[in-house]
């Protein structure tokens, strides 16, 4: 079974949620609610490089209430 996140030949996007958490995401799968595309589509490594550069603090950003 191939995992959709491990296909080196496929294309991916980078998703971000409102806590600035990033997720690699297979381009061919619908983007889940609460996530927006921040980068891509592109190849897997390019997406990972983007994440490494742009997601510098893994702690979830606190959501402003109200």
């Amino acid at each position, binding site marked *: 079974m191939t995992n959709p996140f491990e296909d080196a030949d496929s294309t991916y996007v980078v998703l971000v*949620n409102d806590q600035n958490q990033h997720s690699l*995401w297979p381009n061919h799968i619908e983007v889940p609610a609460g996530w927006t595309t921040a980068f891509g589509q592109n190849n897997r490594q390019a997406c990972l490089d983007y*994440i490494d550069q742009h997601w510098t603090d893994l702690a979830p950003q606190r959501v402003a209430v109200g």
Partner: protein
Amino acid sequence: MQNDRAGEVVSLPEVTLVELFGARVVGAPGAVALVSGDRRVSYGELDGLSEGLADRLVGWGVGPGVLVGVRLERGVDMVVALLAVLKAGGAYTLLDPDFPVDRLATVVAEADVALVLTRVGMRGVLSGLDVAVLCVDEPWEASAGVVSRAVVGPDDVACVMFTSGSTGRPKGVAAPHRALVGTYLGQDYCEFGAGEVFLQCSPVSWDGFALELFGALVHGAVCVLQAGQNPQPHLIEALVVEHGVTMLQLSASLFNFLVDEYPGAFAGVRTAFTGGESGSVAHVAKVLGLYPGLRVGNGYGPAESMGFTTCHTVTDADLTSAALPIGRAVTHKRAFVLDGSLRAAPVGVVGEIYVAGAGLAHGYTGRPGLTAERFVANPHGGPGERMYRTGDLGRLRADGVLEYAGRIDDQVKIRGFRVEPGEVAAVLTGHATVGQGVVVVREDRPGDKRLAAYVVPADGHSVDVAELRAHVAGLLPEYMVPSGFVVLEVLPLTPNGKLDQRALPAPTTTVAGQGGRSARSAEEEILCALFAEILDVPSVGVDDDFFALGGHSLKAAQLLSWIRSTLGVQLGIRDLFDSPTVSGVVGRLTEGRPARPAVVVAERPEVLPLSFAQQRLWVLDQMEGPSGTYNIPVAVRLRGVVDVAALRAAVDDVVGRHEALRTCYPTVDGEPYQLVVPAAEARVPFTVVECDNERLAQEVQQTSFAPFDLATELPIRVELFELGEDESMLVLTLHHIASDGWSNGPLWDGLSSAYRARVAGQAPDWEPLSFQYADYTLWQHELLGEVLDQQLAHWRQALEGAPEELALPIDRPRPAVASHEGDIVEFHLDAELHAGLDSMARQYGVTLFMVLHAGLAALLTRMGAGTDVPIGTVVAGRSDQALDDLVGFFVNTLVLRTDTSGAPTFGELLDRVRETDLAAFTHQDLPFERLVEELNPTRSLGRHPLFQVMLALQNNFDGSLQLPDVTAQSEPFALAPAKFDLDFTFAEERTGAGVPAGVHATLQYAMDLFDRGTACALAERLVRLLVAVVGDPEVPVGSVELLGGVERELVLSGWNDTAHAVGDGRMLSEIFEEHVRSAPGARALVHGEGVLSFGELNARANRLARLLIGRGVGPEARVAVLLPRGADLVVALLAVLKAGGCYVPVDPEYPADRVAYMLEDSAPAVVITDAAGLGSSGSVPVVCVDDPGVVGELASLSVVDVVDAERVGVLGSGHAAYAVYTSGSTGRPKGVVVEHGSLVNLFHAHVEEVFAAELAALGVGRCGRR
């Protein structure tokens, strides 16, 4: 959605661990929070201790987002440190002090550790790291003002857990407070609450650690901290019992081990988890059988989801299934099984397991890309939620329960620990000599998963496996170090170019016990056996590495527990990591014992004293006058042409090499001293005598026991008897003052190599000896002052009140002066018994010697010797390996006193014997002669002082003479003076691979006291006792049956009735017949073909007797019985007796020339044999028992008892009953004739010889002369 295994929706309070703990402190400050050793710490105390340190940390700069390494051993300080870090607002990461320092460096760099908390004693290893260090046990000044702490929320990181990373770097999983709180609040996978007692035994590097500690502390429960970094089975059991532990979280390996070895660890436990890897249904079933009320949970969850994510409580139905399911998601967590498009997989279909919910970590510290790969958007959750893809495969059952189905990638679990083989491989290839490296998990034995490393050397390099292993062990935790390393020329590939895993050879476990030194002491021997037993290998040498042979932390814990129970010393697991060999462990055991100075080359004083042993021999020599009592003669028959000049020169070479062989013992002022004759002046008497075979025995005897004049003569002489052109007999006679059994190796090897050199016209090319006997002598005298007093104190205590004379089953009163006349009974422990004794020794942590010792002590007690049994033995006395190469008198005698009282089982007796013997061996330097002087027992010329029974297991290398173009065969001396009442000597035989091949045994007995039959019976009973206890070591030794079936019946029913009539002239055949009449149906013989009753046996013997009478057999007629052990043999022997003849047993297994000689020499009237023996019987009239004609004739004869009238002549007790052969000194067997009357008196021996077949069928060895 259908397969969303969401836990029950319970709202999770927005709290931190610190707040929950604080609430418990307020609620019940006096309640016990921690138990560590004898220490109990209440919630209030724990809070107070951690408050102070928290302030200090805040002052240092710890706050949210700051990671603090905690490198402290499991204990109160460690918990205080963790709480303090959390209170300060920081996150902790636990750094196991058992992990290699280089691993520590990697972790510190990888996770950006700001500060490491340790203690003063351990700070040294951190000095090389680029990190601040703070010691919790060093004084510090509290800052004057109020320290203000940052506000911490549930999203702040509480801990970072390191787990194996596939790219060669460990990954730090950063878990927020929420993940921990969410895992322990509102759960029902086990009982949480103030009344619970959690055991913290998991390694601190394991994600399950937090459940054991914080799972307790947030609920007001007690957390019991096990000492040591790794789970230790015996401690777990003890802590469960002592503290009433209610929850155990165990890796499946540990769970199974405890079930098998320490089931008491589950007593009173409410919930026990088996997790981390596939649980064993059989072990769960077993423990539920023992503790039906126990709840067994099979937990599942990665560190990325803070451990427990799903859990299954094992039900009865599960116990019949192949594998345990992993259950449903726990509260606040979710688990999905998804397909390749992230859609829910249908029930029963395998997909990948994704987990979500409160347990999720933020990600991997410093690795955003890797985090975003694994923590991904969740299409099945609320807006913006993430899920973690585990890489685990699973399937849902129709009832919603999840089943585990393996891994999607290479990740493996080794004893519950996640291991990425890629990380280990990266470390391998990091070594300069390695070009390519792969690591795979193998399960060559079911249930035993091990990592195996395969490496291809880098160009121009070769791989040193030991060095590579050390490299890996220096960088990775113990569970990640492969147990097998294989060097390949090339890695096998599949046609697609991928690694062909199936083509990888199984690593051959490092061949243990080869090349390395073998055990020198009983402790080493016991430890080698323990190592081998635990590692499941045939043997282990003293320098073999426990971990290199497949040992791991769990096995280490088992080993330590065995060491504790057998040797009474508690070592820590760290001791074993630091010195993982038998010699290393012995070093730890002997720490604190008085050090014994090493033997050194000493300056020679003007007058060189005698060693203590020599002194005693010298005194005896003076007292007894010239005698051969202490001569050690060896005769070797040489076939081939001997170069006499070369042999003479070789003898001079050996004598030149060993000073002890050219030392005389003259006196000055009445005191003897060692006078070493310079090699050039030493003249060894070397006589060449022409001789014929007829006179040889007498000549040999004469030279062998001719006395030495110790004052003027060298203690060695050589005679070469030339028997013909190419046959001679070499007789080397040494005085014991210059030699001992262990000297045979250097003596004969030296003679062999010198002869080879001399034949070639050269001098032998020997490495010079490090020491001479004189050095040892001086060392011993020096030792006397330092160590021997302490040893003497031991012996005084050990032998206080011991019986001066052991009550042995003697046949006649002890004479006032012993004649020292002795004879020898040979017997044999067969290979099966040998193997059984070997394995029992391993099982009980004793040596084979100790098993024999316990057996002998038990036998003597059973034979009426009482329950205080001193037995003598000898030790090599060569305390230093360098002394092994010397010829000289080093051997010392020890007294082993065993208490056999209180009806012990054999196992219990082994424990006692081990204690006695180890203590004795530890104090073996005190010369026996000194001991006798000091204890000053009542002296008697009739017995040996302090003990009268000797036991020796020969392990001294028996050197042999090996001359080119000459075959040399040593000739045993049949009769040596008996120095003890009973002297048991055992010699093991093993195959090249070390497999037990039997034990040859001799019992030399003092003829002053014992008849041969009594000695035979003792030997037989010893064997029978050993057979019985091997079968069941837990049987009380007092209830072991010592008599053979027939012997027992005769003694109990037959013989007892007529015992007073012994010697009344009746023949044994008559006594036998009487017994037959009283119990014709009783079982007489168990043999290969079946069972024979006394009636049947008697009938067959009567028929054969009549047939023999018909062939002229009568009183004084000899009948050779050439039959293998079996019913026919017994029938034949009885038939000969009934006919009134004299039987001569001839074992068909003897060499043909021996059989021929015996048949010729005994001049039998008839030979009874079978078809197989016909070829050997020569020209003598034959009765072939399986010949159809004979069978027919027998059938026609009467079965009733033979009476005198039928016999050729009237039988009297003076007539010969049997003749047996003993080894003559000339190599020719010698016949000994026993009369019918004597036979009756020797009934024990006789019955046993007659019924040897039965004994053989019982697996009992033979007893008799050969």
